[in-house]
């Protein structure tokens, strides 16, 4: 009798253990997801509550948050957006973010582009217009080892160059003009990742010098920088873009936003190192390297406060850069036959003019 009881008890004990273990596993999983969800919801509610009663501006940034967008974060930090009664939210970009389409589709009010890519967007039927430009001179460049520098397009002959396809189309025009056979250069369509240059797999790669140079130098790699503007391809970078209908329907919103950004960029330029410290502490990704950001912040002055910005203040925008980009697009044959596009349809100066004209704009 006793042995029969024992035989009966064993499976039932095992069954009970099994049930407890299963309940524990499932319960633990549910509790974990619930805790994570509660924390995420709490963060969202706090953000929404603090923005009540303000006009909303959503801005899709062209890359991860950092001093590259320093004027935006300094405007937030110094209260310039609050002064303009704006609730501004910034979304970090990534390597596969389609900035222009996100604005065209209405997902974001503002994003960034250079003149050349804005033309490609127009060809695709995107009704976008540029209303301000952060980088008056594009920091887009080819980085090569200082020991084996690439100083011109001709130096690229016989070398392997990492370049995105959209830039390659423009390079091919320059090659045609300089009578360089495209077959003599090995172009590889890599992203803006420096590791291939450092490991010696390529001889140069395309990136913004402002982000690439600090990274490379801090890792003990001295780069030589060949700017696209010095190769005969001047352009803006981080030109602020929006849908034309939205700019026309609510110009005041864009003027207020641009005014706050002008002040933000001036605050940034006044003390780049201090601004970098604030941005790393409060706005950039946790773990962002402060040394890298300080070097980058100091480099930005040569791109933000040059050209027209010296006379009119930061974020000024004018037609000549767009005319050059349009000429390149025509020469490259990227404009479809019969496709009509004029410079005036690509940018509007009215926003930045209105933002810069108020007496308190430039301290």
């Amino acid at each position, binding site marked *: 009798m006793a042995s029969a009881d024992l035989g009966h008890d064993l499976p039932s004990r095992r069954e009970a*253990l099994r049930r407890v273990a299963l309940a524990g596993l499932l319960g633990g*999983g549910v509790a974990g997801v619930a805790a*994570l969800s509660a924390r995420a919801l709490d963060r969202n509610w706090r953000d929404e509550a603090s923005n009540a009663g303000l006009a909303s501006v959503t801005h899709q940034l062209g890359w991860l948050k950092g001093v590259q967008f320093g004027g935006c974060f300094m405007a937030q930090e110094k209260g310039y957006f609050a002064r303009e009664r704006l609730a501004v939210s910034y979304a970090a970009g*990534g390597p596969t973010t389609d900035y222009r389409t996100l604005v065209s589709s209405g997902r974001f009010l503002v994003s960034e582009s250079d003149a050349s890519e804005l033309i490609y967007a127009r060809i695709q039927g995107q009704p976008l217009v540029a209303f301000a430009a952060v980088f008056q001179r594009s920091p887009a460049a080819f980085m090569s080892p200082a020991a084996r520098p690439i100083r011109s397009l001709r130096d690229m002959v016989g070398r392997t160059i990492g370049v995105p396809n959209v830039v390659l189309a423009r390079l091919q025009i320059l090659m045609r003009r300089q009578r360089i056979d495209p077959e003599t250069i090995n172009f590889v369509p890599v992203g803006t*990742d420096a590791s291939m240059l450092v490991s010696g797999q390529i001889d140069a790669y395309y990136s913004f010098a402002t982000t690439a140079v600090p990274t490379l130098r801090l890792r003990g790699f001295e780069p030589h920088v060949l700017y696209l503007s010095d190769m005969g391809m001047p352009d803006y970078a981080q030109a602020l873009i929006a849908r034309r209908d939205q700019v026309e329907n609510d110009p005041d919103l864009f003027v207020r936003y641009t005014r706050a950004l002008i002040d933000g960029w001036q605050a940034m330029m006044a003390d780049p190192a201090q601004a970098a410290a604030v941005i790393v502490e409060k706005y950039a990704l946790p*773990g962002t390297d402060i040394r890298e950001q300080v070097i980058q912040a100091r480099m930005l002055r040569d791109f933000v406060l040059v050209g027209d910005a010296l006379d009119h203040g930061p974020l000024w925008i004018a037609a000549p850069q767009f005319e050059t980009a349009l000429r390149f697009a025509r020469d490259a044959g990227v404009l479809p036959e019969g496709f009509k596009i004029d410079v005036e349809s690509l940018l509007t100066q009215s926003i930045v003019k209105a933002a810069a004209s108020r007496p308190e704009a430039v301290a």
Partner: protein
Amino acid sequence: MSDLWRPLFRSVTPPTLLLIGLALLWEGAVRAGLTPPSIAGPTTIVDTLVADRTTIWHHLEPTLLTTSLGYLLGSGVAVAIGLCVYVIRWLEQPVLTAATVLSSIPMLALAPVLLIWLGVGMTMRVVLTAIVCAFPVLVTIVQGLMVVPREASELFQSLAASDMQRFRLLALPNALPFLFLGLKIAAPLAVLGTLIGEWTGAEQGMGVYMIAAMFSLQADRLWSAVTIVSVLSALAYGYIALIERLTIAPELLDGEVGR
């Protein structure tokens, strides 16, 4: 050791020993200078994981949440569709064809489309993860529900079992091993789907941490992120495998499925 845990121990020990061996070889190669500078050794990775733990947790938290929610949503929808197919048999072919077409779209191509449709918030990343997870679960649940053993089916017929009895006592138990197979395949895919969503644009997440490390030439951080993501995928798989072991009768796990 109980019968319940012995098979688990047997299945975990050999791969663990293999991984330790590989890690030792890897460390040796790095110390001997046989690897490029973009490869960090295991000890460097462990040091970085410890030193960077606060930052890593900041990024791991949303990745865990997105992976879990996407996995639950994708699996839930797939099981619901599978049950519909069981009830309405002629749906099987159209549903599986549509699912195959959807799953054949590369995730990297799908992400920007979802981004425009759903925005850059967590919803987009959860939906992307759900889409990635749904296919293996759907295929396996449909197969499990439809392919019941002939002898058992005939027995239920001769006993004049009702439709509900056939479903509850025959089709569902038969489908469970298949379903768990799909759920196990989907678990690591959920982590991958979340990472791709984060690469498309996010404020936090292991995908964002990886991109920042990659573009700042921080090999130690990049490899730490790769390690965390690999461990997360393995844990997700292991978690489902454990639930499977506690749910299904051992004889079904030992090869009796679908006979």
